[in-house]
C-alpha cells in the first residue's frame, strides 16, 4: 500500500489479531481516537496566544489536565505533559538534580537495577557530569532489595531516588509504599516510573513524582505525563526535554487515561487469568522453560519466559510469521547485542526470552492460539540447532 493510499484509508493496515506487546505500546483506545479527531478540529491553535481559537485550545488543555489529575487523584497544578514517558522521566530527574556548579559535589541518584532505560540513560549522564549513581539490586523474582534500598537512600548526599511501580520486562510489582517510607525518613524525594501501571493498576501513595507514557495506556504516541507533588523541590527544566507535546495528542492521552482508569479493575480481572493460563501452560507444554517474575504480586497483563537452547531473535521472528507480536529481552534482539539489564539483574536466563503483554483487545482465543502454536515453534528451533 502506498503512502497516498494509506492516507486515504486512514486505517491500521497491520495485523492486530494477536498483538501481544502492549507494554511497548497499546493499540489506541477508541475514546482516544474520538478525542484526537475532535481536538484536531477544535484545538489546533497555540494555547499561549491571545485570541478566540487560542482560548478554546486553552480550555481543552485545562480540561485534559483536570481529567488526568482526577484519574491520578492529584491536583491539576501538579500535572505536566511531556513529549513521551522518557521525556517525563528526564524532566523529573533534571528538575531535581540540575547541572551543578563545578566546585560543588552533585547529589547522588539512587535507583533500582531494573529501571527503564529512560532512567538508566539519564543516570549515566548524571554520572558523566560527576554525580554519584547508586543502583540497588533485585531478587530472583525481580523485586528490589528493600534493606539495600533503605541503606542506599539514607546514604550521604542523596538527592533523588527512582523506583518503577512494576517491572516493564517481567511484571513484578515493586514495594513502592515501603520504598516511599524509607525515602520520607531520609528526606529524599521519590520518583516512581509508573509507565506500566497507569490505566491498569493502582499505584501506592507516598511518591514525590510520578511519570507515565500515554501510548502504554491506550493513548496516542507522543505524550507523557509527569506529576510533581506540591512542595517537592523541583523546577521545570528549560527547555522541557523533548519539547511540548501537541495539544490534540494531550487531549487524546487524557481521554484514554480516564477511560482506561475506569476500566482498569474489570480489565485486570479479565487479563490476569489469561496471564495465569500462559504461565501455567507454557511451563507445562514447553520443555526446559523458565517462567520469570513474581507469579502472584505482578502486573495483570504481562508475562515473561525464557526457553533454554533457543535463539530469542529466531523465536520472535517465528512468532511474527504466525501473526504474534511479542517482545524479547534476549541480547540478539537488542541494538547493543547485550542481554536485558533486567534479566541479568535477576540472574535469570536471558536467551530464548519472550515477553507477552496483553491489552483491552486481547481475547481468550488469541491466547489459546498462541499457546497451541508455541511448543511446536520452540521444538522446530531446537531441532535446527540439533538439540
Amino acid at each position, binding site marked *: 500500500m502506498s503512502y497516498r493510499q494509506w492516507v486515504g484509508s486512514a486505517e491500521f493496515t497491520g495485523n492486530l489479531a494477536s498483538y501481544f506487546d502492549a507494554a511497548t505500546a497499546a493499540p489506541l483506545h477508541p475514546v482516544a481516537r474520538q478525542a484526537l479527531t475532535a481536538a484536531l478540529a477544535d484545538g489546533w491553535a497555540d494555547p499561549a496566544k491571545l485570541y478566540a481559537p487560542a482560548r478554546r485550545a486553552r480550555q481543552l488543555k485545562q480540561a485534559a489536565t483536570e481529567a488526568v489529575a482526577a484519574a491520578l487523584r492529584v491536583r491539576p497544578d501538579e500535572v505536566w505533559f511531556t513529549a513521551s514517558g522518557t521525556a517525563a522521566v528526564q524532566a523529573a530527574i533534571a528538575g531535581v538534580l540540575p547541572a551543578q556548579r563545578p566546585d560543588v559535589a552533585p547529589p547522588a541518584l539512587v535507583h533500582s537495577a531494573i529501571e527503564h532505560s529512560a532512567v538508566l540513560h539519564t543516570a549515566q549522564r548524571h554520572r558523566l557530569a560527576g554525580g554519584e549513581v547508586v543502583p540497588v539490586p533485585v531478587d530472583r523474582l525481580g523485586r528490589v532489595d528493600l534493606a539495600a534500598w533503605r541503606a542506599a537512600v539514607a546514604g550521604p548526599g542523596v538527592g533523588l531516588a527512582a523506583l518503577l511501580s512494576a517491572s516493564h520486562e517481567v511484571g513484578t510489582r515493586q514495594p513502592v509504599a515501603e520504598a516511599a517510607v524509607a525515602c520520607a525518613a531520609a528526606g529524599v524525594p521519590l520518583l516512581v516510573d509508573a509507565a506500566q501501571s497507569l490505566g491498569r493498576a493502582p499505584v501506592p501513595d507516598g511518591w514525590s513524582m510520578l511519570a507515565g507514557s500515554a501510548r502504554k495506556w491506550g493513548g496516542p504516541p507522543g505524550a507523557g505525563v509527569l506529576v510533581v507533588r506540591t512542595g517537592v523541590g523541583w523546577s521545570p527544566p528549560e527547555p522541557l526535554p523533548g519539547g511540548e507535546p501537541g495539544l490534540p495528542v494531550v487531549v487524546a492521552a487524557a481521554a484514554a487515561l480516564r477511560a482506561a482508569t475506569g476500566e482498569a479493575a474489570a480489565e485486570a480481572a479479565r487479563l490476569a487469568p489469561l496471564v495465569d493460563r500462559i504461565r501455567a501452560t507454557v511451563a507445562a507444554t514447553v520443555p526446559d522453560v523458565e517462567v520469570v517474575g513474581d507469579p502472584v504480586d505482578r502486573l495483570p497483563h504481562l508475562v515473561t519466559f525464557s526457553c533454554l537452547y533457543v*535463539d530469542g531473535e529466531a523465536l520472535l521472528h517465528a512468532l511474527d510469521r504466525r501473526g504474534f507480536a511479542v517482545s524479547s529481552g534476549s*541480547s540478539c534482539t537488542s541494538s547493543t547485542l547485550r542481554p536485558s539489564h533486567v534479566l541479568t539483574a535477576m540472574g535469570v536466563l536471558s*536467551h530464548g526470552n519472550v515477553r507477552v503483554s496483553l491489552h483491552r483487545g486481547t481475547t481468550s482465543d488469541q491466547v489459546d492460539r498462541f499457546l497451541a502454536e508455541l511448543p511446536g515453534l520452540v521444538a522446530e528451533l531446537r531441532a535446527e540447532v540439533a538439540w
Partner: protein
Amino acid sequence: MSHPDPVLDCRGQRCPLPVIALARRLPELPVGSVLRVLADDPAAANDLPAWCRLRGHRFLGSPAPDAYEIRRTH
C-alpha cells in the same frame, strides 16, 4: 596443573550456542569434574550460571575474563 580441567572453547559464539555446547559436554564428564568454558558473548556471564541453577550443577565462578568454571554435580 597435574590434572588440567577440560576446556570448552565457545569464543566467537553467541548465546544460546555456548549454553547448548555446555549442556552437551558436561554429561560426558565424570560427576564431580570441573569444566572450563571460554565464551566472549556478553550474555554468557549471565546465562551459564542461570543454566547451572536450572540444571542443578555448580557454577564456580569466572577465574579470568571470558572464562567460567562449572562442576558437574549429578
